[in-house]
């Protein structure tokens, strides 16, 4: 398994953002859904090795991120797009992606090719030499995705990747996700259930720091049958599971 979580918690003061999550994930695209404050971003930050868990065990790509050498190896094979993408406005698209390629220790002979491929995959080839300060929000999001995939990661973590993308870009991005999920483990945190339906092979639903549902998108749809909340089948499943969880039962 590329991701193995055992009873992982993460607290910020009295607030327990992630509460006893256990999870095993292999290759494929896992969509993580949940309302605001459910703990999705904290979970992704722990998976990205930038936030240590308060308790519990994490193993990523078969390695222990607490160990410095193993954490470095994980990071060489990790791609991460945070919810709020910080960037250097004076850098060009290529420079920004190359900067991350170098920091991710992409092999020297492959840097140029990897950067060019990543930029092309997010459809920014025509703006490769544009400075980031000149790009729109959607384009910046795509730059963020390019830097995340430049090292051809085995573990790709995307926090709200489609925020700011127009419908056409979103469709293209879902295709990219499916493609990446063939060989790597892709975890996508999102509010947009249609992203999950279109791109994810599996879905996990979080609420109050816990995973209250995990299964195939079709299974989530099935949970929503007979419930009237939501416009789409997945949304109805989403609200049905949340309602059930909040009444005290955690769906498996």
């Amino acid at each position: 398994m590329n991701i193995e979580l055992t009873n992982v918690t993460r607290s910020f003061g009295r607030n327990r953002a992630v509460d006893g999550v256990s999870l095993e994930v292999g290759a494929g695209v896992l969509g993580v859904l949940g309302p605001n404050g459910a703990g999705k971003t904290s979970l992704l930050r722990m998976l990205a090795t930038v936030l240590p868990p308060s308790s519990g065990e994490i193993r990523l790509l078969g390695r222990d991120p607490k160990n410095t050498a193993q954490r470095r190896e994980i990071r060489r094979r990790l791609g991460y797009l945070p919810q709020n993408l910080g960037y250097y406005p004076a850098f060009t698209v290529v420079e920004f992606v190359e900067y991350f390629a170098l920091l991710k220790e992409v092999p020297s002979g492959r840097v140029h090719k990897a950067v060019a491929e990543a930029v092309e995959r997010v459809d920014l080839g025509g703006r490769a030499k544009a400075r980031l300060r000149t790009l729109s929000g959607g384009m910046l999001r795509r730059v963020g995705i390019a830097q995340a995939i430049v090292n051809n990661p085995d573990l790709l973590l995307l926090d709200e990747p489609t925020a700011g993308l127009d419908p056409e870009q979103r469709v293209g991005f879902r295709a990219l996700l499916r493609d990446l999920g063939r060989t790597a483990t892709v975890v996508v945190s999102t509010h947009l259930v249609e992203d999950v339906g279109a791109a994810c092979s599996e879905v996990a639903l979080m609420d109050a720091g816990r995973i209250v549902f995990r299964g195939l998108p079709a299974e989530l749809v099935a949970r929503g049958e007979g419930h009237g909340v939501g416009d789409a089948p997945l949304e109805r499943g989403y609200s049905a599971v949340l309602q059930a969880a909040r009444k005290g039962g955690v769906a498996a």
Partner: protein
Amino acid sequence: MTAVAGDARPARPGPSLLAARILRMEIRHSAFVWSIPLLAVLFIYDPFRTASGYPDLWTVRASVVLNKFWPDCVPFTAAFSAWAGSREGRRKVGDLLGTTARPAWTRQMFSLLGTLAWVLAVFLAGIVVIYVRTAQVATWGGPPIWPVVVGLVALTGVSSFAFTLGALFPGRFTAPIVAVGLTVLALVAFRQSVDASGGPIGTLSPDSLVPPNDAGVFYPMAPDVWIVQVMFYAGVVLAATGLLGLSPRTGGVGWRRALDAASAGGMRLRAIATTVFAVGIALAVTGFGLAGTARTSVTGEIEIPALHDSASDKPIAYTPVCAHVSGSFQVCLHPAYKNYLSQAVNSFRPVMAELAGLPGAPVRATEVASLTLPAFVLQDNVGDGEVTGTPPVYKFGMNNALALAPDATQLQDGFRQDIVHAVIVGSTGQLTASVGTPAQQAVVDGLLKAAGSQPYPVCGPGDNPNANRCRRQQVPVTAAAGRFAALPAATRRAWLAANLAALKAGRITLAQVP
């Protein structure tokens, strides 16, 4: 879902490639570039113009590197280094960068180097301009290396310190606050300490006073203070960069874990950061401690006893440059002052035409190190000198002459006043300088007037009661001097030949002066 992804990954890039590419990127995007035009204007207006106005001596002109150019560079260096240091925090890329394989410390080092490369390049470019200009006019010696080394290390210290502050406290106001803070430290605290000639802070300040003209001319410049300064600022560099690798706020490993790792003897990054930090603190503290032991050496310089090499107290061998002035009288200067030889010759010529050959008059004027002249001579007049030995030789220093005489006319008057005073009045051998008897004063001023120079400054400058009273008392002397100057040169010389010994002994009255 499938099993764990395979481990077969190609080797990571070599450090040199990473360094070259990231450094190139950081250099290209350093905001310091924007300050270069302003720094260039400042450079021309301040250090370059000042150096060009100094005597044609390497040590004196090179002093602007530290007491003019270095302070000019400090605010820009501090501001843009702090700006670069705060970049990750300001741009909120910490999470993103935190997932990369390269340690935060390495990444930040490249960012620091990107700014530092510009800082040092600009500083070195300025030094090259000053040194090339000096090489065109200096007649002896070579470019001093120590001011360059101290300046580079001290600027690196400013840059590292500011960068670390920026990284620790990221924000858009960090850079201006750090720039103002370090500039105040450099320009106010350092300069006041230097002016007060006090304490280790003054000794450690690169913003030092202009050295005497004789510095490094007759005696080597002892590197003691420079070594201590390099030690201190290298310590600041190491402590600041080590702190970057340790503080959790900058992506470091945290103090407790770092100390654990260091005590375990592991050579991991955190152990290295701990070592770098500890060595830096030790160096800075040692430098500060040594600076506190500074004292004045026998050659008049500041020495650090623990570092002082007595070899630097021995005079430098040189072959003087000489020229004939009048008859057999010649003037000899240190080759460093060769550019002033013709000025010295022209200054001495009219007065020595009347004095040369008289009993007790010098056969030669030789420049000596000012510190070898007695104190009562040094406090006398601009042309510091005395007649000693057999045959008598007029020994004088150029140190004060060049420092106190801002233009050629004043320098010429100073030379003449002093040699005439030394021949006619001589020194009393006491700290209180003697202006001579009224008759001696009249003869001195008469000879100076005949040579077209100002009278010997007896009363001092300014409009004050003492000076005015003195001037009233000088009226008969001035009248006698005018009479003496009006005599034909041959008559003056004949009278001096007959009466010089009595005049020097004080047995001639003012009324006896023709």
